[in-house]
């Protein structure tokens, strides 16, 4: 579907079996959309629910009234859900979000401002500067003062742009260095669709693979200062846990992080 001039941002959010975790995610998402619209952006939201359970479906019905389009699909694959939603997107930009996370309310508005300020001819993917991985298990060591328990599982990750002096595309051979939370022109997603999960062949990890492919294709990855993505640490059910359990590798046909031609374009912090 082609971009419609009066839509600035399409928010693509994917759900599957988040259950009650979808409630805070949807409320946080609503804040994001409100903050984005307050900055003047015209925002549409497309949600996909892939093979959902009854609880997740009900939560979407009761908490997702602000979502313009809800697509119930039978893909069993996050990458396919995103690609499907991107095809439906009418916004000039698309933001991809996961349905069990939360976001600092500035993320969407600031990412849009950064993207609008960027060179219109350049291909740039924006990420939040900070990731905060929180864990419910930390209630057991809840600290009342300034210092957390030594056992705290929550942690921060500060993301770096591809123009950062410490960035090296070969890092992507060993670790994923950008989360799935991405904001880019919609045509970037269409040029680089997410690779599908292939259990039989042991490959998947759509966001990591996408980061490698976009970097290889000369797309810059940038970070938006003062923004944060809150990621729930789950022992099971999350994609990260699935990737670990199934011992998946990235899927990037014909390319490798070792053969990325110059990847030091774009804007950093």
């Amino acid at each position, binding site marked *: 579907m082609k971009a419609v001039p009066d839509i600035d941002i399409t928010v693509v959010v994917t759900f599957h079996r988040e259950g009650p975790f979808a*409630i*805070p995610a949807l*409320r*946080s998402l609503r804040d994001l959309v409100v903050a984005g619209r307050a900055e003047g952006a015209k925002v549409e939201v497309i949600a996909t629910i892939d093979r959902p359970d009854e609880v997740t479906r009900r939560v979407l019905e009761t908490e997702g009234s602000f979502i313009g389009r809800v697509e119930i699909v039978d893909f069993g694959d996050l990458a396919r859900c995103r690609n499907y939603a991107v095809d439906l997107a009418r916004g000039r930009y698309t933001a991809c979000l996961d349905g069990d996370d*939360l*976001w*600092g*309310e500035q993320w969407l508005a600031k990412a849009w401002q950064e993207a609008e300020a960027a060179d219109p001819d350049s291909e740039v993917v924006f990420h939040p500067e*900070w990731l*905060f991985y*929180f*864990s*419910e*298990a*930390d*209630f057991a*060591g*809840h*600290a*009342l*003062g*300034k*210092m*957390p*328990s030594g056992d*705290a*599982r*929550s*942690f*921060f*990750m*500060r*993301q*770096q742009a591809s123009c950062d002096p*410490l*960035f*090296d595309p070969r*890092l992507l*051979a*060993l*670790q994923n*260095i*950008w989360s799935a939370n991405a904001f880019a022109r919609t045509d970037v997603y269409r040029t680089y669709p997410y690779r599908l999960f292939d259990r*039989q*062949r*042991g*490959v998947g990890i759509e966001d990591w693979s996408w980061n490698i492919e976009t970097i290889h294709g000369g797309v810059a990855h940038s970070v938006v200062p*003062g*923004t*944060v993505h*809150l990621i*729930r640490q789950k022992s099971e059910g999350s994609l990260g846990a699935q990737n*670990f359990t199934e*011992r998946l*590798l*990235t*899927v990037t046909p014909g390319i*490798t992080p*070792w*053969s990325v031609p110059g990847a030091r374009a774009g804007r950093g912090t």
Partner: protein
Amino acid sequence: MFAAFPSASLRLHNSLIPGKRPSVRVLQFIARTLDREYYLSANADVAAAGVDPVLHWLDHGAKEERPIAAGLFTRMVSSGGLLPDPEVIHTLPWRAGQWVQIGRISSNLPIRAQDLTPVRPEADTVRPATDTADEDRRFVDWIGSHFEADAYRETNKDVIGSDHALLAHYLNHGIFEGRRPSPGVTVRYGNYTGDERGGSWQKFTYRGRPLAASLVAPPEDVVQQIRRQWRHESAVLASGYTAFASVNAYDAVDLWSRSGLKFDRVTKAFPRVPQAVVLLEFLGVGGAEKYGIDIADVLVAAGYDDVIVVVTGQREVDAGNWEDYSIFSPLRSIPVVFWRDLTDDNEDRLDAFARLLSSFRAKDILVFNSRLGLEAVARYGRGMATVSRIYCAFFSMGLPGRGVPYGEIFPQKVALSSRLLTDNARMAAALKDRVAALDGPGIHVVPPRIGTVDEATFLGRLRRRCHRARTLPDRVRRWAWVSRVEPLKGTHLLAQIAQMRPHDRFDVYGPLQVDMDAAGLNIPNVDYRGVLESVLTANFEGYDGFVFTSLTEGMPNTVLEMSQHAIPLILTDVGGLRDTFSKNSAFLIDPPREGRDAASEFDAALSTVAALCGDALAAMLMDAKAAVSARHAPEVFQSLVEEMLGK
């Protein structure tokens, strides 16, 4: 020695494995001195893992130089580093060429609270005591400007005093005990070997040892945004309404913090993407290692652009002078990477290893007894096989109750994604029996290569042997036995044979895995003669035959090499020996099993050999030589490897 730690006596760990064993003095000292409560409190990772502190220190803490008690540091030094140091109170032998030193870190309290000017808000005025070494000053200044006394006081209830006293406590004690000086600051003391690119890490030297410090903390507006999400999800602040802002923080590009890998070393180790990767467990003189290196040699000869050998179970420093051994000569033209030197803590890092291997998109990955390599293929093989051909070599199955070789553990785990490779038909049959139903990529048999002697040398040896047999009919019969001295090599069978032939002499060559007593060989007509530098170049003309009693094998190189000495071969019929030898070229005797008297058969065979001379002797020795040349000559090996690789 572990009586004080019951759990320790129940488990085998690295420190008790022969060859990895520190000295008894170290074991005794650590068992007696290590403060378990201190160690667990200072090392949250150990406490979380539920590992016995003594075992942890022996396996990891020693290398990481973790203190063993409050105020007691440890460090590893080589012989060349044994310099006088007033802080060192004990120096004990660790392993060959290495020593462990134990010293007191705070015996002289070089920084006193009264020597420090106020910490905050005039942080830039903090100065160490005048007697502090110059190199300490940089760190003291840095930490002085980032130290938060309130937070330190709050976290460390055992420490009381003014702000200045707290900073002094941190510098004199807390830093060595792993305490955090303030939110957002991470300090690693004593073992800074991380990414040389630095990043958020600043490098210092403190009290004569390396130190790295990092300050990564979210800005206040990000903290506030997170806090506001609490109204949607209370777990966001589970670690504490204020404290959450001070949980650990890393840079995404900081591979050292995230996965313990030294990225700068990774990129230096692999300057180009290799076309073939050969994985070895270690660089030691062993059949599997020789086989893997010989195949790497053929890959180079076959025109592969970049072949690299990755050693997965050993650090370079532990490989010693491997370059001196002839079996490693092909590695003069092949780069060798020691994977464990790329990690922070000598750990496997399986996931990173598998991802790295896969990322090369190498044409071929070949695994030779590398446990990490086999684990990587077992777990990630499906994905790896989408970009590379994988070969996993297996040489023998185990004997019931007598050890478990990788041939028992891994074939079914790797067969779907990997071609199985072996050096003998018997193992190929065993592998086929186990994995045929899986319908994997298949099984290849490539007999090992050996260096053969030229015809003239062989004929000279043959002539002298026949002459000796003819001219010295009443000589005392002498028999050579060459292998690792350990029960699986049939040392007890050899002992039985020797006892049945009290007038013969038996000379034993090879590394002692157990002492002669434990091998059952402490008997009058058996002598231990040490380790041969090379079987091919040693002189066996004074012996009447070569006795090989091994109970389980793949394709033993020693036997193949002995065939070049024009010496009668009396062998247990194990592994792939029957692939090469027949009754015309050697005596093949079934190994002892329950109710089977192999010793008597050996005794009879030795009597037959002792009486051999003339044409019969010459025919047998020439048959053996011809059989080995036909199957194991370098050109035969190269042809089979190339065929396997589709060249």
